[in-house]
């Protein structure tokens, strides 16, 4: 069974159709890269998976998206529960203006966990999971803004992991980072794959090639091709995909 399964998804910003009939499925514990030129709809699609687009006024969606077999756009879906299960990491590192510790604890607290021991345990585990523990263990009570960009991004990933999601959405998580921080995040994604289903939007072809199992190429709001990353990068079935990957446009 697929972890995430979208069928005939259309999405509109007002009159403007941003996604055309997207059907795309992802297996459990895989990394799927969404690639394509700016404005192709890949970020919009990503944001449908945790209903982040609900926050934008005047939008419309049709079709269905199933996660673990449940339609996340069904009337009886609890959006808060969905978002707990589907964590998100953003383009620019955006730690909250809180201490390092409280950044990770925030998600636990808003979900009603008050047991101090449990919170501490989860905070530590999450920070360890993103390989940040050694760097921050002595300054957990310091502001998260004191960390470097790459550390902040890993903290944001820890923040998402703390509430135990099973899916992780990443919207160009390394585009604001230097090469060393980027490679650390990539290694991390490779590790996290064992426990999480990851969907990542990236503009970096090499990155998609390095870290993903399957790659989906979006163009003008349509899903052009979705296959294993190896196939997409070596013998894509559709000429547009090949043109984009070899840098002939986009």
């Amino acid at each position: 069974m697929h972890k995430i399964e979208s069928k005939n998804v259309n999405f509109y910003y007002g009159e403007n159709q941003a996604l055309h009939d997207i059907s795309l499925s992802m297996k459990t514990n895989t990394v799927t890269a969404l690639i394509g030129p700016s404005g192709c709809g890949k970020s919009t699609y990503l944001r449908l998976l945790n209903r982040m687009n609900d926050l934008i006024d005047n939008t419309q969606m049709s079709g269905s998206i199933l996660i673990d077999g449940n339609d996340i756009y069904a009337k009886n879906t609890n959006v808060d529960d969905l978002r707990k299960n589907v964590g998100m990491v953003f383009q620019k590192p955006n730690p909250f203006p809180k201490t390092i510790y409280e950044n990770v604890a925030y998600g636990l607290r808003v979900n009603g966990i008050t047991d101090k021991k449990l919170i501490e345990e989860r905070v530590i585990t999450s920070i360890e999971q993103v390989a940040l523990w050694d760097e921050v263990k002595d300054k957990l009570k310091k502001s998260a803004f004191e960390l470097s960009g790459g550390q902040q991004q890993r903290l944001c990933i820890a923040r998402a992991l703390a509430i135990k999601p099973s899916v992780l959405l990443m919207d160009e998580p390394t585009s604001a980072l230097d090469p060393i921080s980027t490679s650390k995040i990539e290694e991390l994604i490779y590790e996290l794959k064992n426990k999480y289903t990851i969907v990542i939007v990236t503009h970096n072809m090499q990155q998609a090639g390095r870290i993903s199992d399957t790659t989906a190429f979006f163009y003008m709001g349509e899903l052009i091709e979705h296959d294993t990353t190896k196939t997409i990068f070596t013998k894509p079935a559709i000429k547009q995909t090949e043109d984009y990957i070899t840098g002939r446009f986009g």
Partner: protein
Amino acid sequence: MTKEIRLAKKKRRNQKIAFGLFSLISYAVVAILFVILAFIVIKGIGVISWEFISAMPSNGMTEGGIYPAIIGTLCLVLVSMVFAFPVGVLAAIYMNEYVKEGWPKKIIKQMTNNLAGVPSIVFGLFGMSLFVNKMGFGDSILAGGLTLGLLVLPIVIRTTEESLKAVDDTFRQASFGLGASKWETTSKIVFPIAFPNIITGLILSIGRVSGETAPILFTVAAYFLPKLPTSIFDQAMALPYHLYVIATSGTNIEASRAMAYGTALILIIIVLISNLLANALRKYYGKKVKMN
């Protein structure tokens, strides 16, 4: 070739003239401010003494001090802020975080802007008919403070809205993404980030409230009161009105001329101190917000 050089020279010359003009104008603005300040300081510094700020006016307001007017103005600032700050901030939070884009929001916004453009004397009349007469507060600090509060409400709302808008949307999305509710997101993430800037609204309002004369004219200000107010239902003297009185309609205008400048100076100093205080507060919270 020479033609091109000539053209380049001409361009450079025009640019120099334009920049020169701009800098001249900016310095002129600063200069005007300093001239006004210097004028008031020079004319008023002579009467400033401990007695001037701590004593009651005496001998037909030509001697003594302006203590009750200072206290009155401070009371008015306090009452108006206690009213306008929470109301304005909550209204702005509601407008910015909860109301969806659309024509009702546009209308409310337009109305808020219009409110900011209403002449202050109109607020005075309104305050008199609503607070003084209809609600029966009489001429009192409460009525005057509320009137002043209404006057600065648009300033508080607008600066709060701007501060909330300046908070990057990904903070909200990250918070929602963790399963936080709208209220948790607003109160625990968005508001603390915006708070240091919201204080700017407070600063502007305090300056405005302490200097306004028209709104207090019919609602609280007393020509002369030999005692301090004891409750918010008492009338009070206030600096801007006192200044008007001793400068235009006192018992002996010539004799109280220097005191008028002294009063103006005190008024400016109060506004300056409140600005400095609010600025310090903003800096303090700006640091603290990253830490809690």
